């Protein structure tokens, strides 16, 4: 019996046959992550398994640990800094999408959710009960809650408004690399003081264990108000948010920025007409509508004071949805009119910067750096200015040779490193492993990195969970 056939036979004895696939096309689909280039054929996983219980996951992990087979843990595989991509041949791709239970415990103000539950479906359920999900990532229609907890992201929201996702995670159920199942945290809204094992897993990108279930605090929904402003200069928006915090106004739930170029396609798609400038958008929250509206009025005044050519509270629900969708569905910016050449998003930069340097960083993206291919590519700037998280997206024509396009991606990554190092920050949205490992080592130093690798060795001595991610394999040069 070949090695692969034996692997599959062994795994079928653990998970139902229906929850396993060795089909080449399934393996390609699951193995490909959210970025180009294509997954290398030799890295295509040997098998995809989708266990439906924590016990099955435990058995799969025990087996892999015994046989020293790499496991790549997948929610939906949408992360775009290389972490979901298999890096070693012959791997098991372990999808958590079979874990979708949701148990509400409203009397104790929490819910428990399987790691594979879809974020959008979860959000819909919570909203129907009068709660909100304290996160919003661009890929929520496909992404899982387990993936978000594994990188501790709240996506577009403003950290200082509601906190980071980990602030809502009361505990997790985890399968350790040796297959043991543990539970962390508490069932009380009073969180542990001191040691809380949850922090070994939430935000650790699946290198210490497989998160299978999450206990999260229920957060009653708020009333919202929307403010939109159009500014002559992109840096005016940065100044507006710097002023908003200087004046000690409550942080909005969302504080967004979209340069004029980036507004064009999403506005056209939604019939919003020609953008009147660079767009700033804020969504405030309050326990009452009056409270949210008052905050929105104040932000509109700040926008006007910072040179907005137009700034107003948006009251029409249709308009609120359209402006929000124009920013939220950012991939729309890549849509070109009929007959124009398609653009490919090759250099995606995400950097969180100090409040006082927001405007400087925008200028640095545009003109301050010396990366030649980035200067040749088309730059869109957008991001979560309210949480000081900015994105630069350098797009190339599809006709550029692959090598040049990949160079563009590399330059954007180098620029991201440079900005984060220069201003002493880190990315705040999409994880720190895989292609960001060179930055991680530079930013926090070799002593900290060695500590991380030593801990990994102790917890996962056979390095079976997401191997290559902490090493930055494939992203060395």
């Amino acid at each position, binding site marked *: 019996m070949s090695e692969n056939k034996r692997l599959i036979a062994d795994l079928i004895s653990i998970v139902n046959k229906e929850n396993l696939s060795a089909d080449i*096309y*399934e393996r*390609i689909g699951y193995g490909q992550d959210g970025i180009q280039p294509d997954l290398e054929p030799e890295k*295509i996983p040997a098998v995809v398994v989708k266990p439906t219980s924590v016990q099955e996951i435990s058995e799969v992990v025990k087996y892999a640990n015994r046989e020293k087979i790499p496991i790549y843990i997948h929610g939906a595989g949408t992360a775009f800094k290389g972490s979901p991509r298999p890096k070693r041949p012959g791997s098991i791709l372990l999808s958590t999408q079979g874990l979708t239970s949701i148990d509400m415990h409203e009397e104790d103000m929490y819910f428990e959710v399987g790691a594979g539950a879809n974020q959008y479906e979860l959000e819909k359920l919570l909203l129907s009960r009068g709660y909100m999900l304290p996160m919003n990532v661009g890929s929520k229609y*496909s992404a899982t809650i387990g993936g978000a907890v594994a990188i501790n992201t709240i996506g577009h929201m403003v950290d200082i408004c509601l906190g980071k996702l980990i602030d809502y995670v009361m505990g997790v159920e985890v399968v350790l690399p040796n297959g043991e199942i543990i539970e962390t945290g508490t069932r009380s809204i009073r969180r542990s003081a001191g040691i809380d094992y949850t922090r070994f897993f939430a935000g650790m990108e699946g290198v210490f264990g497989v998160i299978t279930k999450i206990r999260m605090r229920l957060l009653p929904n708020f009333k919202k108000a929307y403010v939109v402003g159009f500014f002559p200069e992109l840096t005016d928006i940065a100044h507006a948010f710097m002023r908003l915090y200087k004046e000690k106004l409550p942080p909005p739930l969302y504080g967004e920025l979209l340069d004029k170029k980036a507004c064009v396609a999403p506005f056209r798609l939604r019939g919003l007409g020609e953008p009147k400038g660079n767009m700033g958008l804020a969504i405030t929250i309050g326990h009452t509508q009056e409270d949210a509206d008052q905050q929105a009025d104040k932000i509109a005044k700040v926008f006007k004071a910072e040179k907005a050519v137009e700034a107003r509270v948006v009251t029409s629900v249709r308009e609120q949805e359209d402006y929000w969708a124009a920013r939220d569905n950012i991939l729309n910016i890549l849509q070109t009119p009929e007959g124009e050449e398609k653009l*490919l998003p090759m250099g995606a930069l995400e950097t969180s910067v100090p409040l006082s340097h927001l405007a400087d960083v925008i200028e640095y993206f545009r003109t301050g750096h010396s990366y030649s291919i980035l200067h040749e590519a088309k730059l869109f700037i957008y991001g979560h200015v309210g949480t000081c998280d900015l994105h630069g997206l350098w797009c190339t024509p599809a006709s550029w040779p692959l090598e040049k396009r990949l160079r563009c991606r590399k330059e954007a990554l180098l620029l991201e490193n440079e900005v984060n190092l220069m201003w002493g920050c880190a990315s705040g949205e999409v994880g720190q492993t895989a292609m960001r490992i060179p930055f991680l080592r530079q930013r926090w130093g070799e002593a900290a990195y060695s500590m991380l690798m030593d801990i990994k060795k102790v917890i996962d001595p056979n390095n079976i969970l997401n191997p290559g991610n902490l090493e930055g394999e494939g992203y060395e040069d």
Partner: protein
Amino acid sequence: MKTDNTQETDSIKEMETEILNNIQTCINCRMCVPMCPTYEGWITQSAFGRLAAINLHLKYGLGSIEELSRLIFSCANCRRCQERCKMLSTNVTPTDTIIKTRQLLARKAQEWGRN
């Protein structure tokens, strides 16, 4: 002067190029996965999975043409993915690409029949 067979091969190559160029603009966001009416939990039951399969089959010859054909013809042609991709993503027209691949496979079968 080109013979019929050479023209056929050129046309197949052109179709392949068109399909691959279009797939290249997909950024693998998977927005088209959960809403596909044929999706029952496996990625190839969605537009993204079908495009990923077509991509590596045409580039590296991975997988059998019969299995690829089964995937491509299992698409319901409802165009929900196409609408979703337009509103939420980069508008790669996945349904059109799948239909184009059906035409490609039919053309290839025709050529094999002739040879």
